[in-house]
């Protein structure tokens, strides 16, 4: 906190020395606000359009609503073979499983890498780092064959089970970084008090790494919620569709004729992401700054 204030003070002095005129910050703000508006305009416009009658969407670049039309949501909700509730619940189930899996498996691996000494640790750690950069496409075909032979097509298992096996190595790395920052003296104290390796993990490390766990939760939530490729491949039965797959088949089914309800359902699909963003901003920003995950 103090370094923060010190820094701001330095920055302020810096800009005071350099900003010849007082007009400069005003211009910066105007430019930034304009940029922010341009960036978010399409999204805001989509929300507004979802509340307009279909024929108005194509005439109105502005944000004023003349006739409020909420039927887009009702129509969109029931436009596919299953009501949208079903897809939301499916997505929620997948997200829940993925989050739980990542929290359990990644924290275990991270604890081993950050705190335990064992033969071959360096080797496995470098393998783990390399897998972060491995494209999913190299494994997707055999994975598909594997899961289809296991009879897992049209179940959520292919989307959840890998998470319990720490395949999202970013989070292992993120947690390793975090655990490295926890003083080892705490482990020592717990050990003297009679804690074993598992005890130290459960009673000392896990409670202290809540911020890292929160970051993992929020990123896993948003990524899994948005994930399209693997859900498209593994879920072909409309009953099992998740939100992104349902939205996509919505586009195909209505062939761009019903933008109003398409936007309405798009908005619905983005609401959880917005909420996760609002609640977890702090963790998201920290997480991305330390590991570069998106």
């Amino acid at each position, binding site marked *: 906190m103090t370094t923060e204030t010190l*820094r701001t003070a330095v*920055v*302020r002095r*810096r*800009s005071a*020395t350099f900003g010849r005129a007082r007009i400069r910050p005003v211009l910066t703000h105007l430019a*930034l606000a304009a940029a922010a508006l341009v*960036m*978010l305009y*399409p*999204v805001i416009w989509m929300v507004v359009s979802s509340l307009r009658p279909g024929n108005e969407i*194509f*005439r109105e670049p502005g944000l004023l609503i003349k006739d409020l039309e909420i039927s887009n949501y009702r129509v969109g909700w029931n436009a596919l073979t299953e009501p949208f509730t079903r897809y939301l619940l499916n997505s929620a189930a997948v997200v829940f499983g993925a989050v739980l899996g990542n929290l359990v498996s990644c924290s*275990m*691996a991270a604890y081993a890498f950050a705190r*335990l*000494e*064992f*033969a071959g640790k*360096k080797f496995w750690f470098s393998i*783990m*780092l390399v*897998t972060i*950069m*491995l*494209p*999913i*496409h*190299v494994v*997707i*075909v*055999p*994975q598909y064959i*594997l899961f*289809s032979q296991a009879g897992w097509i049209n179940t959520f298992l292919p989307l959840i089970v*890998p998470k319990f096996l*720490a*395949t999202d190595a*970013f989070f*292992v*790395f993120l947690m390793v970084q975090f655990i490295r920052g926890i003083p080892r003296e705490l482990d020592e104290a717990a050990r003297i008090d009679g804690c074993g*390796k598992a005890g130290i993990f459960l009673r000392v490390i896990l409670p202290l790494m809540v911020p890292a766990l929160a970051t993992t939760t929020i990123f896993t939530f948003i990524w899994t919620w*948005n994930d*399209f*490729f693997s859900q498209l491949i593994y879920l072909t039965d409309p009953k099992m569709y998740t939100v992104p797959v349902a*939205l*996509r088949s919505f*586009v*195909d089914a209505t062939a761009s004729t019903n933008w109003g309800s*398409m*936007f309405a359902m*798009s908005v619905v*699909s*983005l609401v959880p992401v917005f909420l996760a*963003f609002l609640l977890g901003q702090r963790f*998201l920003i920290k997480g*991305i*700054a330390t590991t*570069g995950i*998106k």
Partner: protein
Amino acid sequence: MSALGELSTLGRNKPPGQGKTKKRDNLAGYLFLTPWLLGLFVITIGPMLASLYLAFTDYNLIQAPEWIGLENFTRMLSDQRLHNSLQVTFTYVFVSVPLQLAVALLLAVVLDRGVRGMAFYRSIFYLPSLLGSSVAIAILWKQVFGTEGLLNQVLQPLGFDGKGWISDPSTALGTLVVLNVWTFGAPMVIFLAGLRQIPAMYYEAASVDGASAFRRFRSITLPLLTPIIFFNLVLQIIHAFQSFTQAFVVSGGTGGPSDSTMFYTLYLYDRGFGNFDMGYASAMAWFLLVIIGVFTAINFIASKYWVFYDD
């Protein structure tokens, strides 16, 4: 430190004697590592080896894989659609990544000057990074750049002729480039974190010497930020090579119009999961891995000449 930084320092020697004094406990280590190791072998390395084998076979999921040697690879040599998809992907990567990073750096520098409400702007600019990969945004993009879309509604009163940006093969890829640039928030946050590491006294010394703002940026900010630029560059290139969702949704899964948005991954999906040509798709997947590997290697080699480490 970032994963990339960590990786590049792995080879370097740690101080001697460390580790020897520590008591090893192999059992505990491997017990905690069990889920990850299982995943590594069953979900990653196993499938990788299988896909390497399948790359040399003809396999349609129904009949047993048939060994055909290098046939998939020779077929790739003469596959015009594949060549086109490579061209589309390369264009996308080489145009959108530098643009995205330039915008990210520009805004990071502006925000780092202690702008009031910096956290607010940072959040706003970061938000699209979270939304960008969603189907909903791809649907939105389809409308924004459509014939009757938002862009044309804005352009027409200004005297521009509207056109179907997405239905025109010459501009369709451009709309996806814009979409990728739009998600500059993630690299921007990394740049911001990097800028915080630069000691303010460097700038103070430079301004005492009478350096202009541009000069300070060029001679202090840029060199000290090169490791972060490098990190972002490697990551975003790998990321961009794998783009799929946006092109898939915008083109209705066809990579159209006239294959102008047929990303390599889209073509791979089309071969593997559209036509169940699993052998060929595997060969394509390995070629993608080689391409990404080569680019990452080139990046690492080239980095010796332009990335500056302060320590």
